[in-house]
Every structure is written in structure tokens, then in C-alpha cells.
């Protein structure tokens, strides 16, 4: 019997672990969205022209589900074409990336209190420092110069409305 080099050695090798998790997660999301479509307001056929509002999303969800179910096995076909689906996720997400996500979420969450100008300054200060920028002169000129440039360009020249936030409280 001919030994196929590409044939998976065990049943477990048929599945790609990360992709299986993704497929399960996506299936749950699809299930949830399908459930949501069943809660759409019912419309008489006369008004909907026999195309109820849930019909199109449901067709999409079925097609997506069909494709999602192939994902755990896709690595076998990709390997045959010399592609490694795991190359970009070999390393776990860097701590610096998680920190960046957290900092940016926190800044956006507090932006309504801070107001636009202070939010811009907060981004200009926090990210470079968090990423390891320690040249004081560079930092100071960046933190002063860049927000000033942005405020002059967008608020004064282009007329974008910037929420005053905390600055108004201080002014009052």
C-alpha cells in the first residue's frame, strides 16, 4: 500500500487545536445571532413582500456556519499548498500588546470626563512612556508639540468640535 506523506497520523492530527477553538466560538456566536433573528418583530407577508427581515441574515448565518465547520481541518489543505496557518500565532500575544489594549480602552473610557484635549495629551504621554521612550527632551517636545498641532489643525482650522471635559470644570 502506498504511504501518503500528507495523511494525518492520528484522528487528533486531523484537527488544528486553535482553529477548533475558533470554530466552536464562532458556532456559538452564530447560534446566538440565529436566536436573535427569531426575536425580530414579525411583519405581515403583505408588507414584507414575502421577504421577512430575518430571511437574509439567516441565509448568511447558514453559509457562514457551513464554512466555519471546515476551519478545524483547513490546515491539512493549506499545508499541501505550503502555507502554515499557525505561523502568525506561534507566539502568544505579547504583554506589551495586551497593555496597549488596556491603556487605550481606559483612555477612551475616561475620555468623556477628560475631554478631547486631555485625552489627546493622555495618549501622547502614556503610550510612548509605556513603550519605553525615555528621552526626556523628545518626550516633552512631543507631549507639548503634537497635541498643540492636533488641536490647532482640527479644532481651530477644520472646526471639529472638541468636548472640553475637565478643562471646563477647571475654567469655571
Amino acid at each position, binding site marked *: 500500500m502506498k504511504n501518503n506523506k500528507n495523511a494525518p497520523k492520528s484522528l487528533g492530527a486531523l484537527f488544528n487545536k486553535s482553529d477548533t477553538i475558533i470554530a466552536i466560538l464562532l458556532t456559538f456566536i452564530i447560534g446566538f445571532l440565529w436566536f436573535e433573528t427569531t426575536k425580530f*418583530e414579525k411583519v405581515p407577508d403583505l408588507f414584507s413582500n414575502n421577504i421577512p427581515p430575518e430571511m437574509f441574515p439567516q441565509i448568511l*448565518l447558514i453559509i457562514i456556519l457551513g464554512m466555519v465547520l471546515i476551519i478545524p481541518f483547513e490546515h491539512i489543505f493549506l499545508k499541501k499548498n505550503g502555507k502554515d496557518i499557525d505561523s502568525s500565532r506561534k507566539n502568544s500575544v505579547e504583554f506589551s500588546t495586551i497593555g496597549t489594549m488596556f491603556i487605550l480602552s481606559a483612555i477612551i473610557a475616561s475620555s468623556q470626563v477628560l475631554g478631547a484635549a486631555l485625552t489627546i495629551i493622555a495618549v501622547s504621554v502614556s503610550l*510612548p512612556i509605556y*513603550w519605553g521612550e525615555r528621552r526626556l527632551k523628545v518626550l516633552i517636545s512631543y507631549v507639548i508639540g503634537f497635541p498643540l498641532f492636533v488641536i490647532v489643525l482640527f479644532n481651530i482650522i477644520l472646526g471639529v468640535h472638541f468636548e472640553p471635559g475637565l478643562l471646563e470644570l477647571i475654567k469655571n
Partner: protein
Amino acid sequence: MEDIIKGIGLLLEFQNILLILSGVLIGVLVGALPGLSSPMAIALLIPFTISLDPVAAIAMMAALYCAGTFGGSITAILINAPGAPPAVATALDGYPMAKNGEPGRALGLAAVSSVFGGIFSLIIFIFAAPLLAKLALEFGPAEYFGLAVFALSMLASMSGKSSLRNLISGLVGVLIGTIGIHLTTGVERFTFDIPDLEEGIHFVPVLIGLFAVSELFKQSEKLNAVVERIQAKALRLPTLFELKKLKYTILRSSGIGTFIGILPAEGSTVAAIIGYNEARRWSKDKDSFGKGSPEGIVGPEAANNAAAGGAMVPTLALGIPGSGSTALILAALIMHGFRPGPYLISETPEFVYAIFGAMLIANLGFLFIGLVGAKFFSLVAFIPKKLLWPAVFIFSMIGSYSFASSMFDVWVMLAAGLVGYFMDRHGFSAAPLVMGLILGKLVEESFSQSMIIHDNNFFALLESPVVLLFFVLTFLSLSSPFWTRYFSKK
């Protein structure tokens, strides 16, 4: 002819010329910065151009698109780091030529072949777009549905690791497009009682999040990467003798690029890679490839810039984006109140000719900018990432907020950025999602209208030969991985 003159007239206002040149400058700049790309720059530009005259706004974006494709080749040649994906193939021979002591020559070859490719595709654009639009005027909802399905199927072959994941991304984009109030029945769909979702998800924050914020997260992983730069004092234009030797390669690649650009969803990156491979296949000196071959530079460069012009044909004539960047231009057109597609050309031809003119100016503009600013642009890549990316995030926040003065949009941008980052890690591309999001409305509207016309009988759609043709093309497109492998084995 009258429309062409009108179009040129629209462009010749001082403000418009200034905006086009600014678009060229921004395009070359973002193209030269690894990590920043023209789709990202267009996404960031959209909210700030809403208050501009539509001609000026779209012309500026079109100019940025053309120039961004060229800008990527500067860093590909000088630091072996393509500033944009379409310049990947340029680095293969551009960097070795620069290393061999001829950086100016490599930049010159890239610039001239880019200009030639760009102008070639614009000539095709000016003839093909009206013809295609005339043909599309005969289309009914069923034909449009067939075309949209075909365009979605073409997402599979977009650059990326996996065709399947590209398709899933595209369909998720279409699904996101269904959020909000259903136009036919007025029923809320997927709004989860959040008032901000009733109008649906705005394009702009999603585009900015997927292209700019997700890239920021990626860049935060490699903040300390060190690059080696080759000094380039100036760009040196190729001699006439050199151009004569390369004319067939440039011409062939321009044709390939234009054709690939016209295909829905196929972009400059695919064109550049095919342009490079074909240049190598037809070359009499195959061994010089990878060591600084001039053909290895002009092949991909002519192709990727020609694809930029080619991609505008289906975008303007059919309302089907030819690439990620043109999907954004399409979104901008919609926001300015235009209906992209055959009616755009039949009702406002002067507008289309103005865009054509802007792209022509952009092609000549980046040659000029390249000539005088090659040294400066090669330095741009050395702006510290630790200062550059916070600035990109600030622009992203302002762009997302200013579009509708809504903090909800800023959250959408952040969410799209997070989703985009994890999508990329797991092999799902962002560009198909964007194209799906933009095509979504067309797909659902044409599907609903076709079903109403054909009394809910899906198979009745196949009575139209055009629909049948699009479905056959869809089948061929989806099955292409199988039959291309079969033929390549033979």
C-alpha cells in the same frame, strides 16, 4: 469630449490641485512608512473630507491611492521593508540593486515604470469604464445580485493565507451591514436595544479600526526592530537605452496589472507578484533575478500601479470595489451622496473624468516628488515607532469621533481594531470584511428585489443569461484552488 473638458474644468480650481498634490504627498509618505498603508490613510481621511466638495474629496483620495502604491517601493528598495504590501515583489530585486551601490537607479526604474503602468491603466479606464457602465445600465436587480455574488466569491482569491477565511470575513462584513433598521419593513435587526445601532454601524469607524488600530496593536509587538538603511542621495531616471530594453516588460506588466485590477476584489499585491513572475519567465537573463535585475523592479512596479487604475473601473462603472482601497473610495462616494455604478457615469460623466484627471496628475506628481524628495522619504521610515503610532491613534480617534460626533463610534473603532488584530493572528484578512460591509447593502437589496420580481422562486433567476454567467464565474472562482492545482500538476 464636452464632458472631458467639464471634468478638467472641475479639477483646475486652485483648491482642488492643492488637495490632489497633498494627497500625493500623504500617499508617498504613508507608502514609505512600513506599517502605514494607503487604505489606512484613506480611511483616516474620509471623515475630514466630508465637508469638502465631492470632486476635491474623491480626487484627493484617488491621488493618495496612486501615490501610496509607489511610496511603498521606496522603503522596499532602501531598507528591504516594503512600506505597503504591493511593494513586496519590488524588494526582491530593488534592495539587491541598492545594496550593489545603485539605489538611485533602482528608485528611478521603480518611479518611471510606476508612472507608465499608472498612465496605461488610466487610458484603459477612460475607455473601459463608460463601456462597462453602458452594459451595466441594462442590468436589473437579478443581474446585480449575480454580479455581487461573483464579487464576493472573488474575495476568496484576495491575498491572504486562506481563501476560506477570506470568504468568511467577506460574509461577516455583509452580516454587519444588516445591523440596524431593515429598509423594506422598518424592523430593527441586531440592535440589542442600543439606540446608536438603529442607524446601523457606520463604515468609517470600522474601516479606521480594522486598518489603523489593529495595525497599531501589531506594531506594539515589534517596537524595537532595527532596520539597516542604504543611503540614497537622489533618484536617477533610467536612460532611453535602458527603457528601450525594458519596454516589453513594462508593457506586459502594465497589461497584466490593469486586467487584474479590473477583476473585482483583486488588488495591486496580486498584480505585482504576477508581474514579477512574468518578468522572470520572459527574461533572457533569469539568473540575474534576486540579484538586482532591472526587469525584477519594473515588472512588479508597472503591474501594481496599473492595478490601481484598473481597480477604479469596476468601482466607478459597477459600484463593485476592485480592491481594499477602492472599497474605501466607494464608501466615500456613498457618503458624499453619490450612487456608484453605471448611473454615476451616465449622469455625472464630468465627475468621473475629474477623478481620471486627478489620477493622471497624481502619477506625474509622484514622479516629481520622487525626484526631489527621495532622500527625505527614505528618512521617513526612521520616525520612531514609539512616537508615530500614538499619533496614528489620535488621528484615528478624531476621525472616528468627528464623523458623527459620537463617542459610540470611537468604541466601535476600538472594537474593530481588537477584532482586526485577532482576525489577523488567525489568518482572517480585514480587507474582505470591509468589501463585504460595503457590498452588503447591494447584495441584500438586489436579492430582495429579485425575489419579489420572481415570486420567491430562486431558480427563476437563472433564466437570465447574465445571471447564469455570473453564477458560472462564481463557481469557477470558488473552485479555482482545485482546478489550478490540477492543471499545475499536469
